[in-house]
């Protein structure tokens, strides 16, 4: 089943196009790594999928019953806002409950479960502003997960966190990917290729690569030049040519 479908979507700021005729289908069971240079349009595509931006042209098809969990690249909130970790996670249910959202016992149980999953059960009552960058990121992943989404979108999830958390996050995503489709955005290919199953290269245009084996030559041909050499753990096998 198609969870999200972008058909020839274009968008830009003023008259400068940022993405051009982008096509993408996300299906159940997918684990897509979205890579590309900074400013190439990755976050723009995500924001269009999340309904935060209206595309210039093209079509965004997301069935009504599809629920998407979202971890934004930057968090634009006041560190001193009086809200507990538990409440932040519960806010992920807003889209399920709607404007008169209330919290049931069941919701609280689910929140505790999710906090356990992201390793934050002990800090449920803490204020969000007291946490470290990595802890906050776990909480926001919890917020994205609490509604049991069919698709989880993470936009540069390791930007503000240390290496230890990075490894833990990829382990967690591995676990989540067994029941939820994932779209993982990163400007750093080396970080994600070993986790994801397929790759989407974005540099104004989107090229879909139906495996996680990728080389610089392929990236070059996609007009998506990223340096792979600096990351030792990237396979350097040259793949047979294929239809993009």
């Amino acid at each position, binding site marked *: 089943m198609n969870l999200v479908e972008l058909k020839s979507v274009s968008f830009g700021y003023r008259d400068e196009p940022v993405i051009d005729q982008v096509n993408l289908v996300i299906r159940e069971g997918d684990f897509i790594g979205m890579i590309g240079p900074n400013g190439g349009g990755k976050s723009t595509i995500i924001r269009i999928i999340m309904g935060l931006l209206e595309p210039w042209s093209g079509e965004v098809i997301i069935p009504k019953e599809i629920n998407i969990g*979202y971890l*934004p690249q930057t968090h634009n909130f*006041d560190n001193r806002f009086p809200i507990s970790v538990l409440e*932040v996670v519960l*806010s992920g249910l*807003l*889209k399920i409950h*709607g404007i*008169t*959202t209330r919290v049931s016992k069941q919701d609280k149980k689910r929140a505790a479960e999710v906090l356990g999953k992201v390793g934050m059960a002990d800090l449920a009552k803490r204020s969000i502003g007291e946490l470290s960058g990595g802890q906050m990121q776990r909480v926001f992943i919890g917020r994205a997960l609490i509604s049991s989404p069919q698709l989880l979108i993470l936009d540069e999830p390791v930007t503000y966190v240390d290496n230890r958390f990075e490894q833990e996050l990829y382990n967690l995503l591995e676990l989540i990917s067994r029941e939820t489709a994932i779209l993982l955005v990163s400007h750093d290919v080396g970080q994600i290729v070993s986790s994801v199953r397929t790759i989407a290269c974005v540099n104004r245009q989107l090229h879909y690569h139906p495996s996680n084996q990728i080389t610089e030559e392929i990236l070059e041909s996609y007009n998506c030049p990223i340096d792979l050499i600096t990351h030792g753990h990237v396979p350097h096998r040259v793949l047979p040519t294929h239809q993009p």
Partner: protein
Amino acid sequence: MILDFFKYDFILYALAASLLGSITAGIIGTYVVTRRMVFITGGITHASFGGLGLGFFFGINPLLGAAVFGLVSGIGVEYLSQFHKIREDSVIAMMWSFGMALGIIFISLTPGYAPNLMSYLFGNILSVSSSDIWIMSILMILVLALFVPFFRLIQYLTFDEEFARTSRVPVSLFKYLLAGLVALTAVVYIRVAGIILVLSLLTIPQNTALLFSNNLKRIMWLSIGIGFLGSLLGLMISYAGNIPSGASIIFSLVLLYLTGSAGKAIFHARKKHHKHP
């Protein structure tokens, strides 16, 4: 002497205004403080002075004019804030001073009668009338009608607006409704605390409450209690010392804030001491 205090109608009205004001300002002020729109609210209040002057000039109820100016500026700033190119604080400062200037111009153009400006600048809770009490009651009901059913939505969109926008809820609609209520609260309580002092009702109890809790609902309850206590204390000081009520109420509110801060500091110092004797 205490019984004397309750003998007069104007005292009863003042008490009613204190209670209604504590509830309304306790809730709206918590929104203002946690969304960091204290400066905007100051701008709205001062801009409404233009409407006040306009009211005098045309011989209509000045607070009606103030309400219109307050609503236009409050909703206007909320509208402008979505354009990132705009220097929001500068726009607010311009609105702030332009409103005051308009007010002065209209009042000086008003022939003959020179209105008692002091009472609008500094407020007087002892001059509250029964019709004021009606207006304050209606405003309180409006505030409760928005905050009781939609409390969590308001909490979430104040905390992280963009995430709320991805949740298929009408974020903009609620932001405008809230901006309207902020403006109306500021204008209605000009009567009590005056244009210059009204901001204190919306910020001091809330910041006192924030010393003790990270739970938004509890902060609202605490703000209401602290606001009411401060108003009562202020009323008594005003009555006993023949001091303008707006000033004595704010004095009391600050006193409560300082007591709270000191209490918290002592409590923390003791806790540390117990941990590391």
